């Protein structure tokens, strides 16, 4: 899962990035509104954590711009203002959720999970297919009731595929989900982890769509 963090405060941005990394998100961190706008133009994110008070372009303006272009990326806003008027203006501008500073890291992680889950069209907290159940909150995966141990990368890849059930995921999309900017992408990583997952869940669990990518479930 790849998340864009737009935060101008160096300390808070560093903390949120580290906290989201702990939850196995690939995090891209930009420090002003304009850079955030460009990042969202250039790349599809599973979610965006957006501070409202930003230099160059404030958060609300960035959000309105994003929505006016029909981009539905789930956005969670961070705000120092806690009056309902501030919350309302944020939600009206197209935010999906908000957190008032200072906030709890666990709450930020949970809200992001819920946003991503809702965006993928499911309302249950767990993702499942063909006897495989993935719980994003506990990071537990089971096959027919039996707990399966996965590495962080394997989990992220499975999470991505299950979140886009019945849809084809290109290799490049899966790579972006695994790596943030600046992280070195090893070649064949996706193939290696797909291979691991097939060993654990059966070869039929992940379909290879030639020339396009991979898919869990039937053609949409």
């Amino acid at each position: 899962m790849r998340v864009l963090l737009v935060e101008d405060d160096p300390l808070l941005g560093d903390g949120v990035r580290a906290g989201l990394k702990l939850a196995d998100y690939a995090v891209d961190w930009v420090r002003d509104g304009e850079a955030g706008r460009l990042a969202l133009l250039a790349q599809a994110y599973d979610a965006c954590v957006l501070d409202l008070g930003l230099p160059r372009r404030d958060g609300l303006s960035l959000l309105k711009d994003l929505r006016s272009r029909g981009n539905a990326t789930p956005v969670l806003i961070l705000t120092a203002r806690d009056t309902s008027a501030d919350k309302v203006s944020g939600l009206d501008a197209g935010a999906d959720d908000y957190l008032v500073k200072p906030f709890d890291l666990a709450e930020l992680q949970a809200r992001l999970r819920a946003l991503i889950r809702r965006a993928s069209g499911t309302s249950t907290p767990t993702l499942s297919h063909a006897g495989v159940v993935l719980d994003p909150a506990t990071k537990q995966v089971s096959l027919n009731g039996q707990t399966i141990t996965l590495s962080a990368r394997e989990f992220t890849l499975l999470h991505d595929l299950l979140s886009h059930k019945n849809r084809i995921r290109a290799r490049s999309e899966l790579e972006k989900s695994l790596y943030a900017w600046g992280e070195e992408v090893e070649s064949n990583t996706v193939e290696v982890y797909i291979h691991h997952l097939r060993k654990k869940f059966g070869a039929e669990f992940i379909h290879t769509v030639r020339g396009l990518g991979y898919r869990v479930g039937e053609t949409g």
Partner: protein
Amino acid sequence: MIRLHSLRARLLLTVSIATLLAWGAAGVASYDKALHEADELMDGQLAQSAKLLMAQVLHETNELEAKGLSAAHPIEITENLDYDASHPYEQHLEFRVMNRNGLLLLRSAQAPEMAPPTPDSEIATYRDIKHAGQPWRQLSLRSSDGHYLVQIAHPTQERERVGMEVATQVALPILLALPILVLLVYFSVRGSLKPLEELAADVAARSPDNLEVLSEPQTLREAQPLVAALNRLFSRLAATLDNERRFTADAAHELRTPLAAVKVQAQVALASTDPTDHQHALRQVLAGADRATRLVEQLLRLARLDPLARLPQTHSLDLATSAASVVADMQAQAATKQQQLNFTPPATPIPIQGDADLLAVALRNLIENALRYTPAGGVIEVRADLVSQRPLLVVRDSGPGVNPEEAPRLLERFYRGQAAANAEGSHGSGLGLAIVERIAELHGAQLEIENRARGGLEVRLRWR
């Protein structure tokens, strides 16, 4: 002297005293006039009586001459003339009649000794005399042939009684009207002051939350300048309160960000298993605490500086020495960031009046800003100088300068320039320049910020 602070009491007293004075003056004037008129009237009466007596004397000349001259004694009228039916204004009269030789022909029983008029005096001569310890008025009347002299007198206290009576008649109505007048003044003043009382109630209803303008009292024009002044005060007060509230709210929000950072970093530290990440997060917690502390310090500093109209105490000090010591203190900080911090001392000391601690705070803020926004390897120059006899303190850096469109907002509290977002590491409070400006103001200096032609920023404190 007793000061009367009540308008009502003052008006009542003034009107009463004025009325009493008018009454007294009218009384005195009437008394005077009445006395004069009574004088005239009674002189007239004396003349009348004297002429009557003279007529009688001339008519009975022979008998008088015979009796008076033969007896060599004047005829004395001894009958009691004090009837019960006497009129209050009837005059008590005494008289004497003499012939040319000064021989007394006729006299009343208690006729006073009356000095004869000098021979060459006029026919009728009035004179004030004393008789039995009382003031009397006397008229000497000569017959036209000069043969007889009639002298007639009456006491004058009667005339004073008349004067008093007239004066009282004139002044009494005024005296009677006084209580009515006082009552009228009382009610009129009370009525006129009613809008003022309503205004007082209106003002009393105002609070910091309700500083609406007062409606102008239509009935009391004199109160309108007061209302206008109050309304101006209210609007200034509302603006000040608004600023304070906004500043407090902004300050609270500003504190939330470092607190959020501290909390998130602490949670990251608790959750990370990687020792490097763990250490990093803990150091960030400390950095966050430091930043919150610095923000609180700056807020407190500004809160203490804001209400000052002028410096509580100033000392004579040398601007050059103060600047040199601040620059020396900050060398270590500059070295950590691999920056060069230079100070150019002036040729002569720069004597100023001021607060050394505050000046050091201002200069430290300026140098900190320069260190923060100038990339490693940069040069920061501090210069103290006298330019046309006016002290000048300059801090220039080799950083990126400021965006021209940002320049007007730099002094805004909590505003951080674009450079602040790009600066690595420490994050300013957004109050530094506001504090410098305030300190400059208190020292009678002006804060000037300008991009340098060859790059970098130049900040000047120019004494006026």
